[in-house]
């Protein structure tokens, strides 16, 4: 099917789809009862003999509102019902069927109309939703939904009017950087793989997302898998990839399932396979699942895993663009990076911009969730503005930025703006965008120890500093906590930070000391207090 056929079919469907309900059901919201809501609502609608569909959508990122049901009454008249429980099903039906809902309607005492990102303040107002724009409001199983909202227009345009080099050059000019954590310019990687002149070349979509407190990629895949397929198609085209591996975390079953469903549809309609959209471009995709382990997010360990080798990192150089999968040129891009492509290339000639970043915001905030904010937003803005700050009666004392490979920031440091690279030289990074807020109810030493425990447990075992050093750090932190170590214990920790940080083979080992180093730097009093007991 060519693009205009796809588009006219999607538009036709879009005109007749109202009314309908979408239950935001994902890996997370299932845990708060969204699955039951879906079943009950479907049953209730069927019992009433209604033809209107009750569908599944991804979660729109507002964890604090879940479960959420979206009611689309008509074009431009969409309602968002929050905190829905099984007991609310009849009320939803009457809201839906009463025919009296309008933009001023309320649900559980709050406005029910669809909130718009970028307007006003609060959770929605401070976001700039590009990648997240449609997530939560479309049916991830429906290609029509995606196409009706502009999906695949960019790919069609790219295939029809741009050469491989033009795509690479444009992506470099637009300064798209990788969102997996390293912020390496995506186009430069692509160019590197092309420049080898060797084939086969591979594209790997890194959807491993193994670190705790990060849940952006699986949200994207649950909420808008076609966007990922379009994005990876553009990348595969630009690289001249012979094959694309979509490597999904072994526990993200919901995400993997929706991507595989979408892939079936895409294959059927000529959006994957040979001659995509009628163009001279073949897109060969294979979904692979991870076998577990933080280290799988490390690109060379991930490649080993695809090859059937033990999941440990390789030495560099050579880098994957020169010698990756089976020694062939390989580009590894993160899900979020690729999902920026359809919007980025929709406006050729636009000015370069740092773009947005998805932030997995968790911990002691009133409005945790998955949010998308412009690069340059301060951490304080994210914690207090988007997240609403701590619940009443609690005081934020710091955040963990970048997860177990990142570090701690104390409250006074929250005015740092997010962007590629380090947020703080002692450890905190933007990384793949995790911010976990903690307050006075927890000890910073314990926060550090928990992160260190994670790093020790997830060390792949290949290199000595990481395997042995993270274990020794964990033991020392425990001893410090128990008051068994004096000040020399802190010195030993500082030395280990250097040995592990400078000595380790891969990025995960090199960044493993971040929590300890930043903890020692920014929560010095807590550590001093702990060792004081021993002296």
């Amino acid at each position, binding site marked *: 099917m060519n693009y205009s056929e796809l588009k006219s079919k999607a538009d036709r469907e879009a005109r007749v789809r109202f009314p309908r309900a979408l239950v935001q059901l994902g890996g997370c919201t299932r845990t708060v009862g969204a699955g039951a809501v879906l079943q009950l609502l479907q049953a209730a609608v069927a019992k009433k003999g209604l033809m209107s569909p009750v569908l599944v959508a991804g979660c729109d990122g507002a964890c604090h509102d879940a479960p959420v049901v979206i009611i689309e009454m008509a074009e431009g008249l969409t309602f968002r019902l929050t905190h829905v429980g099984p007991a609310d099903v009849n009320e939803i039906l009457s809201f839906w069927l009463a025919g009296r809902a309008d933009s001023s309607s309320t649900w559980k005492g709050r406005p029910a109309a669809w909130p718009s990102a970028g307007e006003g303040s609060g959770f929605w107002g401070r976001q700039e939703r590009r990648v997240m724009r449609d997530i939560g409001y479309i049916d991830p199983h429906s290609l029509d939904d995606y196409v009706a909202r502009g999906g695949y227009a960019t790919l069609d345009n790219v295939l029809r009017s741009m050469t491989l080099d033009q795509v690479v050059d444009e992506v470099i000019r637009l300064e798209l950087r990788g969102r997996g954590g390293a912020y390496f310019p995506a186009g430069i990687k692509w160019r590197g793989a092309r420049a080898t002149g060797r084939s086969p070349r591979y594209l790997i979509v890194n959807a491993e997302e193994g670190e705790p407190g990060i849940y952006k990629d699986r949200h994207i895949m649950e909420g808008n898998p076609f966007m990922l397929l379009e994005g990876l198609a553009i990348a595969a085209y630009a690289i001249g990839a012979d094959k694309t591996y979509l490597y999904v975390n072994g526990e993200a079953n919901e995400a993997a399932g929706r991507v595989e469903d979408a892939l079936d549809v895409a294959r059927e309609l000529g959006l994957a396979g040979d001659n995509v959209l009628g163009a001279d471009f073949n897109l060969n995709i294979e979904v692979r699942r991870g076998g577990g*382990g933080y280290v799988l997010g490390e690109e060379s360990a991930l490649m080993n895993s695809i090859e059937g080798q*033990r999941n440990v990192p*390789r*030495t*560099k*150089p050579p880098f994957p663009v020169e010698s990756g999968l089976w020694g062939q040129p390989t580009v590894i891009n993160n899900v979020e990076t690729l999902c920026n492509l359809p919007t980025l290339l929709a406006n050729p000639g636009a000015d370069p911009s740092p773009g947005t970043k998805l932030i997995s915001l968790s911990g002691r905030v009133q409005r945790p969730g998955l949010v998308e904010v412009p690069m340059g937003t301060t951490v304080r803005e994210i914690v207090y503005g988007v997240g609403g700050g701590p619940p009443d009666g609690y005081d934020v004392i710091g955040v963990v930025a970048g997860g177990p490979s990142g570090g701690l920031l104390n409250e006074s440091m929250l005015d740092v703006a997010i962007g590629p690279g380090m947020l703080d030289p002692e450890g905190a990074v933007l990384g793949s965008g995790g911010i976990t807020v903690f307050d006075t109810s927890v000890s910073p030493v314990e926060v550090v120890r928990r992160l260190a425990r994670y790093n*020790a*447990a*997830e*060390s*792949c*075992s*290949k*290199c*000595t*500093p990481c*395997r*042995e*050093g*993270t*274990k*020794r750090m964990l033991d020392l932190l425990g001893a410090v906590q128990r008051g068994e170590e004096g000040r020399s214990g802190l010195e030993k920790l500082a*030395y*280990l930070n*250097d*040995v592990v940080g*400078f*000595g*380790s*083979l891969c990025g995960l080992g090199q960044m493993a000391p971040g929590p300890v180093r930043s903890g020692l730097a920014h929560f010095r009093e807590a550590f001093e207090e702990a060792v004081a007991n021993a002296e």
Partner: protein
Amino acid sequence: MTIKLTIDGMPVEAREGSSILEAINASGTYIPQLCKDPAMPAIGACRTCLVQVEGRRGFPASCHTPVSENMVVNTNSPEVRRIRQGVLDLTLGMLPTETPSQPLAEHKELKTASRFHDLLTPGYETRARDHSDSSNPFFSVEMDDCILCGRCVEACQDLQQIGAIAILGRGQDAFIGTYGDEPIAESICTSCGSCVAACPTGAIEPKLDPANAVKQTSTVCPYCGVGCGIVLNTDSDGKVLWVDDDPENQSSLGKLCVKGRFGVTFVNHGDRLTTPLIRKNGVFTEASWDEALDYTADKLVEHRGATAALASAKATNEDGYVLQKFMRLALGTNSIDHCTRLCHSPSVEAMLRSLGSGATSNSYLDYEKAGCLIIAGCDPSANHPVAATRFRKAVDLYGAKLIVINPKRIELCDYAYLWLREKPGTDVALFNGMAKVILDEGLADEHFVAERTEGFEEWKASLAQYTPDFVESITGVPKEQMIEAARIYARPPFSGSCFVWGMGLTQHTNGTANCHAVLNLALVSGQMGGRGNGISPLRGQNNVQGCGDAGCTPSNLPGYQDLDPESLEKFARAWGGRLPEESGFVVTDMMREAEEGRLEAMYVVGENPLLSEPDLRHAREAIENLKFLVVQDIFLNETAEIADVVLPATSFAEKDGTFTNSERRVQRVRKAIEPVGQSRADWDITSDLARRVCRRLGMDESQFDYDHSKDIFDEMAGLTPIIAGITYERLDTEGGIQWPCPTPDHPGTPILYEDSFPRGLGKFVPVEQTEPAAELPNRRFPLILNTGRMLYHWHGGTITRRVEGLMARAPELEVSIHPKDAKRAGISDKEEVRVESRRGELEGRASVTEAVREGEIFVPFVKLRESAANFLTNRAFDPSAKIPEYKVCAVRVEPKSSPRKVRKGPRAMTAVMRP
């Protein structure tokens, strides 16, 4: 291109693309490098080779950071020492705090590294782990002493292509283990010991008594024809302590198998013959050399005209050369032969007839370059383990298509794209069928056929009946498989096709026909004379190639020079005496001649016909019929036991000389220890004997005055064009050289037949499938016995039975039998069984397995617990090459506990001798 850089202030040059570590090592500076094997790619795990590079952040690991122009490297600044010391301290924290439990190794490289960093006491409480595995008789694994560097895993997987061990578990719980965490002895481990060699701490350590080596001697492995380089570590008492691999050796590149690494302790075994023995009144008595040699000389002179010799393919080229010179010049006979008669004589015969030269056409390197490998009638994993690593590598790393042709399932079947499981003795039909497919489908290399061959049309016409259906009916191989094999062989996915074969094709009554069928295939497909193609008979003994090269065959002078007037004249002039013009007896003729009384005396050097001949009871009768038998060996083998005189020879470790391996590479054998007891080098004994014989015959004894093996080699090279350019000096400086090497400046020849064949055009020789074998099953003997070899023993086992660890791995004869046959015979797995043929019987232990076809059993021909397969085999032989049919005879198998069904009567004379 050369890169200039500075290391610790010193200007250094390094090859572009090399690592900083290589440059550091070349500069003579020491830096720890626990996980880096010099011969392997960097692992990057131990992080002890960190350095500082000016202008670069952090401390890159020098093992996997390439050099760049004007780089300034600092290996010993306080900053980098501080980090490296921290890493080493963490490493030491994995080990027990007390004195290491391994006195032999003392944690080898780790110790050096720690001392370099003044780390004598660990900074951490020990995190030692108690996992250990001592199931393998040659080495043990103690996780206590392991630093998880991964070198053993790399050696097992990447060097040996086996993958028996891996790092299991994650994080701090990681350990070295096997699939399913079974004991190593029960895994697919082949005990090659590459892991032992790679281990930098002694966590994987040989089970040896602590001892200090005083000397290292680089020489060549005495086992199979691959010819791996080994380094003998010896003590001051002349004992071989252990063996290291030799990464410099071009044939083995640092690889060894279990026999090469752990199997040479036989050298010092108490059973070694140490004095000459003379049989007096039926019992051996010790004798002086003079007494023994004079007595032998008298006897040989007495029987001159009715003497023959067996040369040893385990001895050196020099030994062989002197022996054949003695037989031809002093005893006036060409009746000298060696074990090639029993292994590859059909290959040599067919190659000589079709091509004009009887050797492997290409090099081991071509195995790795080939797009298609056919491995027919051999089990390289057992017999040529180091060659097998190359086959596995070709498949695993380079994507070659491997086709196994064998009735028995061999280890390489795990790597095979196709496994053609033909019925025994039907190979001619199979290869003719493949050739017909190649012709019918237009896959022949027409250019090659037109330019380089003759006899094509006649041969083509001979194939008419070998249609796929006909071939399937004969061979039992599904025609689709046969057709696909033909297509892949003729048109490999890349590069060329290499045809490798062994005794499974030759030890048949139709052995020469099999080999011709192979050569015809290679000719019609043009798979000769290029990189990645060729024909490759895998040679058995370490020097079976060289023994033939040296002239130990009844029909050829050294270097395969014919017994033609011109050559005879050349040798007569050089040797100062007349040479016999008539061809002599081959091994199998000798047995007949002895039996019939025409052969009276035999000089057997390093051979053991009473274990290697077929139908041993008959062979013994023949040998016993001799009037005089002198045996020269290192052990009192079965043949020596009935000899009149036994002469103690030195082993390979006690002499200088050369071996020539399967890829025609002449390599230096170097003396590592003094001779055991009064033993002497074979060439020395033969020369002494020859002088005494010459004296008695009034001949010029100075022809046998040699001071050193080098003198012999020089004489041989002067008379033998194929090695004319080789000298000991060259072998010492350049390493092994592949013949032909006609001139001193010739680099040797890795690939034969690039432009032409020695006989000019390659000749197609039509061959027909005949009866599969001389003796086929019937009601009384319903099963076919297939014989062959096994990894843990060498041939008859004379030397491997004297290596404790090898005996521990394989103490008794294993009789492989198909489950259906086992059920029919009432045999269960691991039960003791008796195997009988018309000629004899043996006892062994059943291994019930589908690795053998229904209706066939397999018994290795090693002698264990007095049982040997050759008591059963048939002495029917190939009419042309006269090789016995070791691979097929009819037998029955019963539980050992069951009463004999048939009274043992006189031996039935059922062997069929073909004209």
